[in-house]
């Protein structure tokens, strides 16, 4: 049970700044997922919390203890590594009891904790095997078991599922959620996979280039991305962006884009007057493009040509050519529209995301 706080944490190697002024608070019992593209500094942040990487500036607290100079062994954390890092010369049981033996716990207590963890993770029949005799998923479970037996204050996961195949990854994700519900300990999880982030997190921290871009619940970052990076990083297929000028014609306002005009309702802006004749970037998720004419705002519908259709089973991704140079993606239930067909589309105006092209920040 613990709270974790990063206060103005900075990390640099010489002149190369990896993390800039990270301020982050993770509450007791939260499942925080740090997500971002590779090289964004997310793993470094986790390793700094674990004590495996020195901190250049700022402070890290676990509960009220400042841990900046504490060795990893004194931080009462447990970490699951990307490559599992099981000790190859020890059996599963020895791997799991290694930390407890170092702590000089009573033999019966060690036995009790290992059995308990093995029960949770269904490892009982594997306790006497060597790591090399296990499959990827089993190794992953042992690595988690090694963390559980210690009853740590905080669990750290460093891309634990990235070495597993897609199916196993899905299974392990559910296992992890179950585990979290059972243990309700603070968990900090690093991944570059936004689906993992969305499904696991109670709090998502999105990072890019060493800076936190947004912190929020999965639904917050999905529905109200604070900048273009977050908007494009979260959600598959990626959000469509259309850059154009806001113009007004009579009562209505439009986004003017390469000879095309898309109707934008005034309520999409907090103060639309400010943006008349100015450039903005409109973001619209593929799910928010309406192709069904019965549900469409017919008066303001636009025309497009179907370029490519990707069938995904029940759903399909339709790439629409909306101008000479611009394609946007829409997801629908399988409509079986052949390519090159002219169709009509409109936007779900409630879910328009409008960004300032210079600052790339959200303005609505």
């Amino acid at each position, binding site marked *: 049970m613990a709270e974790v706080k990063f206060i103005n944490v900075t990390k640099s190697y010489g002149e190369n700044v990896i993390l800039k002024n990270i301020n982050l608070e993770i509450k007791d019992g939260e499942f925080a997922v740090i997500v971002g593209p590779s090289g964004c500094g997310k793993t470094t942040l986790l390793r700094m919390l674990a004590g495996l990487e020195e901190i250049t500036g700022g402070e890290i607290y676990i509960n009220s203890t400042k841990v900046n100079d504490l060795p*990893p*062994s004194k931080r009462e954390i447990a970490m699951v590594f*990307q*490559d*599992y890092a099981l000790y190859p*010369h020890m059996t599963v049981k020895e791997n799991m009891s290694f930390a407890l033996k170092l702590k000089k716990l009573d033999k019966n207590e060690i036995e009790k904790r290992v059995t308990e963890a093995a029960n949770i993770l269904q490892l009982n029949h594997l306790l006497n095997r060597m790591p090399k005799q296990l499959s*990827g998923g089993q190794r992953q479970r042992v690595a988690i078991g090694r963390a559980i037996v210690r009853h740590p204050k905080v669990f750290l996961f460093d891309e634990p599922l990235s070495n597993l195949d897609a199916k196993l990854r899905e299974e392990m994700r559910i296992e992890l959620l179950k585990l979290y519900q059972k243990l309700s300990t603070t968990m900090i999880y690093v991944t570059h996979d936004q689906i993992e982030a969305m499904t696991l997190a109670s709090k998502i921290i999105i990072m890019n280039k060493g800076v936190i871009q947004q912190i929020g619940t999965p639904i917050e970052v999905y529905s109200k991305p604070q900048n273009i990076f977050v908007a494009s990083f979260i959600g598959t297929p990626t959000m469509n962006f259309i850059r154009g000028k806001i113009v007004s014609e009579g009562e209505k306002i439009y986004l003017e884009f390469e000879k095309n005009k898309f109707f934008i309702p005034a309520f999409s802006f907090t103060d639309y007057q400010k943006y008349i004749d100015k450039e903005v970037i409109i973001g619209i998720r593929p799910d928010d493009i309406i192709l069904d004419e019965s549900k469409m705002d017919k008066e303001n519908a636009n025309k497009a040509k179907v370029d490519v259709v990707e069938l995904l089973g029940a759903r399909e991704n339709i790439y629409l050519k909306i101008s000479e140079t611009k394609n946007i993606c829409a997801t629908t239930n399988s409509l079986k529209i052949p390519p090159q067909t002219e169709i009509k589309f409109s936007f779900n105006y409630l879910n328009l995301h409008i960004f300032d092209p210079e600052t790339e920040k959200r303005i609505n």
Partner: protein
Amino acid sequence: MKTKLKYFFIHLFIIMAVIITTYPLLRIFSVSIRPGDRIISTDLALIPAGATFISYIKLFKETFFIKWIFNSLLITFATSFIGVTLASTAAYAFSRYNFTGKKWGLSALLLTQMIPAGMLILPLYLMIMKLNLINTYLGMVIAYSVSSLPFSIWILKGYYDTIPKSLEEAAMVDGANEITAFYKVILPLSTPALSIAFLFNFTMAWNEYLVARVVLYHPQNYTWTLGLFELQGQFITQWGMFAAGSILITIPVLLIFLYSSKWLISGLTLGSVKG
């Protein structure tokens, strides 16, 4: 048919190789059991007529052979243990830490391997003399350990480099300090490389002659290499005893190799961290 032919040639090659390597050994064995009057004979029989172990008995009775073997074993084991112990920690530092002079240090170690042993005899002798260790086991052990250290460090460093750092990190998160992580995780994983370094040290020290020649002068303190040479007189060489000695001194090395082969093989099958 094609595979049969292939296996035939493979077997033929292996049989030839075995003959080439074992023939000289068998000849020495044959010389060692010849009776004294037939030492110099052109007979090719492996077990000569009138075979006898008299040379072996004479070797034990008339020379310090047991003492020589004891000296050799003592010096060799001490050298190997000290060499491997020092190399294991030095190599770890070279593999895991960044410090000023790391690159230079590694190159310097490599450089020492390029100097022929003969060139080092004089400086080694002078140093051991200054330390007052001439004609002592300690002097020999120091001379041997330092000369094999660079090679052992390189071997072990190369091996440590292949062990993922996350294993030590996992150990440290599990509550170990750096030293415990080294002893409990890295060292046990390095047995194959440690065995190779040990074997190298062992064979080097066991067979060494030049340094022993200048450091040791009392026949009681000789290693077997000097001892066997003692049997070669100005006018007469006792070939029977020489051959018997040669056969006997292969036994310890053979046993060490047989024993350590299991470590060498287990090392080859050691899996990496991820699947």
